[in-house]
């Protein structure tokens, strides 16, 4: 499961251009030279466009509250679970070629074979609607070109909030465009004047994703002090996890692990002795 509030691979590329223009509007300045800790924090937060990003999040939340959230809530409420599962399976099925391509580009031959086998098994036995391969123990996974770039060592660049598409960064934005361009479904739809199918797919995907994260986002809105900062942190951590395929990585050490050595035992002992 990927996190983004909205990830609609459809041809709304103009909006992304608008996003880039808006990005130029506001910047946070680095802290004064000499404050090393503040500078380290500034670099770690890596969000020089924060004021603009916050404005875009406000816009996205408006759109979400008016359209997407009600749609996702209704979808979860009125569409039976088995049908939602089929819709989810079908969306995953359509995405299989892109996942396969990125498995290969990342040199993950085993995972590529899983994606390939899943594709023909689910086409033959499940018409794309049933995850027969999953039932056989061949679990599906997601990949995208943003993750491929990360595996190749391309840095993420600063945090960005894209209009409608949600949290991102330059690397993942390029990934989004490449995924769109390499998706056979999109190529077929574009070449046969069936763009409406792309919109239908994008809309369904948005509702399906949003329905899957209803509780998570409600929870985050309820418990976070600063929703924007929480989303930013969550997005980064989820992406790092996806890039490492859930295994963690030497390049992306879990922050906090290094200073775990500093205190926990000491504190644990203290906490015990206090009672």
């Amino acid at each position, binding site marked *: 499961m990927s996190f983004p509030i909205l990830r609609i691979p459809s041809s709304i590329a103009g909006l992304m251009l608008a996003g880039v223009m808006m990005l130029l509007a506001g910047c946070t300045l680095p802290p004064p030279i000499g404050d090393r800790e503040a500078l380290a924090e500034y670099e770690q937060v890596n969000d020089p466009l924060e004021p603009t990003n916050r404005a875009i999040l406000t816009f996205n939340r408006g759109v979400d509250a008016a359209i997407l959230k009600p749609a996702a809530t209704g979808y979860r409420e009125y569409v039976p679970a088995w049908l939602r599962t089929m819709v989810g399976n079908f969306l995953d099925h359509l995405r299989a070629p892109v996942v396969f391509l990125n498995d290969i580009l990342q040199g993950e031959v085993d995972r590529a074979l899983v994606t390939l086998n899943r594709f023909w098994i689910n086409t033959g036995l499940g018409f794309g609607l049933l995850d027969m391969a999953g039932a056989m123990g061949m679990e599906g996974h997601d990949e995208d070109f943003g993750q491929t770039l990360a595996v190749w060592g391309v840095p993420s660049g600063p945090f960005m909030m894209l209009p409608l598409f949600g949290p991102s960064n330059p690397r993942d934005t390029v990934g989004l465009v490449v995924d769109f361009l390499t998706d056979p479904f999109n190529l077929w739809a574009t070449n046969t004047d069936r763009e409406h199918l792309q919109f239908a797919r994008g809309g369904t995907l948005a509702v399906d994703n949003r329905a899957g994260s209803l509780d998570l986002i409600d929870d985050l809105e309820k418990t976070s002090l*600063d929703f924007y*900062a*929480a989303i930013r*942190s969550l997005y980064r*951590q989820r992406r790092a996890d996806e890039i490492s395929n859930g295994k963690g990585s030497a390049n992306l050490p879990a922050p906090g692990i290094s200073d775990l*050595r500093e205190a926990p035992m000491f504190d*644990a002992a203290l906490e015990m002795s206090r009672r």
Partner: protein
Amino acid sequence: MHAGLFFRWGFAAVLCGFLAASPAAADNHGKSSADFIRSLADKAIASLTDPETPRPERIERFRKLFNDSFAVRSIGKRALGRYWRQASDAEKTRYERLFEDLMVVTYVDRFANYAGEALEVEKSRIEDKAIATVFTEIMRKGGAKPIRVEWIVGTNGVIYKIVDVKVEGVSMTQTLSSDFASIVRRGGGIPGLLDELEKKTVQLTAGQ
């Protein structure tokens, strides 16, 4: 800067020496940590899942469980990060109280929800003498994809305490830390953060 680094590693070295000297801190804390998490899950089921329990009572039960199983002060300090050192003693005291309160009201419902679903321990991995990661999956009802939860458990060989939890790769401590730092940085300062914590705690205690 080097002095700080030296102090840090010096402290770590002393701590390691202390741990190495402790005979109980054998290399089986991976397995013991896994048992610790299992027993925590059982306790949570026993004390939190009964829907008849009134919420204030459930909050108090969870507070006890939370303090017993989590290195609350350590998590709180790491969540405040560098601002911990900048805080006055009075602010630290107030922060520790508010942090515990906030964590309890934030996690009581989530914990109770999770407790109703089966937690399966997959494996554990020893990180070093004091730290082990316990990999678990929470099995959802209705065939939804299981949730991957990793518990980072610290130990001195006798006491076990959770020092961080990662849900699908998202660390509780790191998320809190980004959230808190953002409030401090955006002009609230430490007093601003404390007020926000207080407000949120009141909201969440009343809510639901």
